[in-house]
């Protein structure tokens, strides 16, 4: 399911995927339960809206300040990491990142890779690229491991297997791992633990994502509950960290407020079980830890987003997933319907910018602009506004952004309708005439309007306009 650069366009078949998701009752039940659970847990952590808004404003300020100095911070990160013994690599594209990683693995004669959870690695479709090179990549996050066994991909950026029921996972383990059937969650986790603990020991290398890269310390911060992130970065002799260039923060002082927002927004936890700041490989006196640590800095469209003042706000994201948990569309569809690495509101904003509007711009249509995502975003990304901007870019080429495929989803008839709509609304006489026409001719309007009336009644203008009513009520007021 991972959508790499070679795969077919995300736009293709989006509507069909939506239909499939909406007809899947088990999925609907699962999503509803899981999203309610996550929403409630988050709400318990932020009981006071104004206190949350204070924290949100601070999170936003910190991320904004970091992004303003992004090139300098990256250079600083590179030099501090190098001093600490972490080798830094730069990848402009997904393909280049995959090449760098497979070269590092080949140079180390590594045939098996154990992976901590990394959405960036999903973004570059790393597993498929490594498979082509004969390198076995095994996911170790329980959710990621489940979807890998299932031959699909994550449907949520924090909880990858959220779309599956316990019984489905029980059958999957029984069929794929040939263990006795059990649908007891503790027993299932126990099975995963046993299998993966041997994988950790055998792996030639480990790969992880990065939650925050701390420029001043040359250190990488990883946030998790399971311990697989620690295992992947500790047990194998080689550790490769893959990090989007926007993940850099200036100093250690930036970590506590951002971490607080991240864990509370993501899973409703005051803190996760493990937070690990990795400063470098094994030192002379040490008895464990990887011999070598590499950091791959991934651009893949991010520097292009950075160049547009408005779209740059996308890069503030700390990947908590709160926007999708609160999205009424995601809650009905689940992540797979989007067909993209990042689903939900943040995916609708990120994917068209990475892949281009001609390949992923349709995603922005799956939004009611209800605004929940923007309200809960811990760093105050104006997601509805960005979705609107990308919808505009899908039709027009007039913005200054560098988003690929701008204007390529333009539908001539729809554009004409909107042009007329704007024309009417900009001219009072014409507007009044059209309103008069609509109210007088209301019975002539069609009763069936395509898909809209399949589940709803057709809207019908009132016999008198609001302006009429107000004029009638107060005849002296000429403003109406």
């Amino acid at each position, binding site marked *: 399911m991972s959508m790499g650069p070679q795969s077919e366009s995300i736009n293709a078949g989006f509507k069909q995927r939506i239909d499939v998701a909406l007809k899947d009752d088990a999925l609907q039940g699962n999503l509803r339960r899981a999203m309610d659970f996550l929403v409630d847990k988050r709400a318990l952590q932020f009981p*006071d809206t104004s206190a949350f808004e204070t924290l949100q404003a601070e999170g936003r300020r910190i991320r904004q300040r970091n992004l303003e100095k992004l090139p300098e911070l990256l250079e600083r990160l590179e030099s501090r990491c190098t001093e600490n013994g972490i080798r830094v690599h730069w990848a402009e594209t997904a393909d280049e990142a995959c090449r760098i990683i497979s070269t590092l693995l080949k140079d180390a004669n590594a045939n098996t890779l154990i992976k901590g959870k990394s959405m960036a690695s999903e973004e570059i479709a790393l597993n498929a690229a490594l498979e082509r090179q004969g390198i076995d990549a095994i996911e*170790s996050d329980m959710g990621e491991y489940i979807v890998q066994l299932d031959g699909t991909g994550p449907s949520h950026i924090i909880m*990858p297997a959220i779309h599956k029921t316990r019984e489905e996972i029980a059958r999957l383990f029984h069929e794929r791992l040939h263990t006795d059937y059990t649908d007891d969650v503790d027993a299932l986790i126990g099975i995963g633990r046993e299998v993966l603990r041997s994988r950790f020991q055998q792996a030639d290398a480990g790969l992880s994502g990065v939650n925050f890269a701390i420029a001043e310390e040359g250190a990488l911060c990883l946030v998790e509950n399971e*311990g697989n992130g620690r295992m992947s970065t500790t047990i194998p002799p080689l550790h490769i960290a893959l990090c989007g260039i926007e993940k850099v923060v200036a100093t250690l002082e930036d970590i506590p407020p951002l971490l607080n927002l991240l864990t509370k927004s993501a899973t409703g936890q005051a803190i996760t079980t493990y*937070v690990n700041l990795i400063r470098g490989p094994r030192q002379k006196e040490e*008895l464990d830890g990887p011999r070598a640590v590499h950091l791959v800095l991934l651009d893949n469209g991010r520097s292009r987003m950075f160049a547009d003042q408005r779209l740059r706000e996308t890069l503030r994201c700390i990947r908590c997933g709160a926007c999708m948990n609160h999205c009424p569309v995601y809650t009905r569809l689940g992540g797979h319907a989007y067909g993209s690495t990042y689903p939900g509101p943040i995916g609708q904003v990120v994917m068209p910018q990475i892949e281009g509007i001609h390949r992923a711009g349709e995603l922005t249509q799956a939004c009611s602009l209800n605004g929940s995502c923007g309200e809960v975003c811990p760093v105050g990304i104006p997601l509805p506004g960005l979705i609107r901007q990308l919808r505009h870019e899908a039709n027009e080429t007039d913005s200054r952004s560098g988003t690929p495929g701008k204007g390529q989803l333009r539908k001539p008839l729809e554009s004409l309708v909107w042009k007329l709509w704007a024309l009417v609304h900009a001219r009072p006489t014409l507007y009044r005439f059209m309103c008069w026409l609509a109210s007088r001719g209301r019975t002539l309007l069609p009763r069936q309007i395509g898909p809209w009336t399949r589940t709803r009644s057709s809207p019908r203008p009132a016999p008198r306009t609001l302006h009429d009513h107000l004029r009638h009520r107060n005849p002296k007021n000429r403003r109406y």
Partner: protein
Amino acid sequence: MTQESARQRILNRLKSGKRQTKDVPVGSPVAPTEPVHISPERTPQTAAEKLERFCDQLRLSHAEVLCVGEDEIQQALGQHLRENAIKNLLYAPGSVASRRMGDQTAFVETRPFEQPVEQWKAALFDDMEAGISHAQAGIAQTGTLMLATGPSEPRTLSLVPPVHYVLIHEGQIVETLAGAFGTKPWGNTLPTNLLLISGPSKTADIQTTLAYGAHGPKRLVVIVYGGTRQYPVSEA
């Protein structure tokens, strides 16, 4: 060669993007000028309140907490090991934990961590039942232990054995994470891993049902020691 140019191209794009959008003075310090510390839950706390919050939060995260006097560590640890029929205990020679735990050979087989991990990986994973660490700091607000890895605190000691004991002096408990970072107990350079641990390993990846012992320790036992003992010794 291509590496250098990828780096250059990314940085050039960022720098020109920066010029186009916002005026940031060239050569301004990378570190933030005004430090921000906001934490609405933050309230002044006495040492006793901090200790209580620390223990409560850890227990909420499914950790076991024992509060003992400085001279009672050996006995409390030994008793816990025996009661739970733990056969062996891994420790780092020369570590604070190894000094503080005293002689445990009457209760358990003690095993020093003295070989590089590659030489005994299978035994570490398959045979060791418990490991013991010492925390540099504790964070009351979230019930978090801060461990600094190094020669006397191997990374795997707190990760691989299914039971993890951590000793912490009650005087090391601070209110917030920002406070713990501010005191920099690790000195000038960060340790190879600066670990924040808040409970046993867990996951909710199967239908949001919480399960403990995902990949790391299944049990976390925290022994808080110090002179005051204002908090009940036994667990509620």
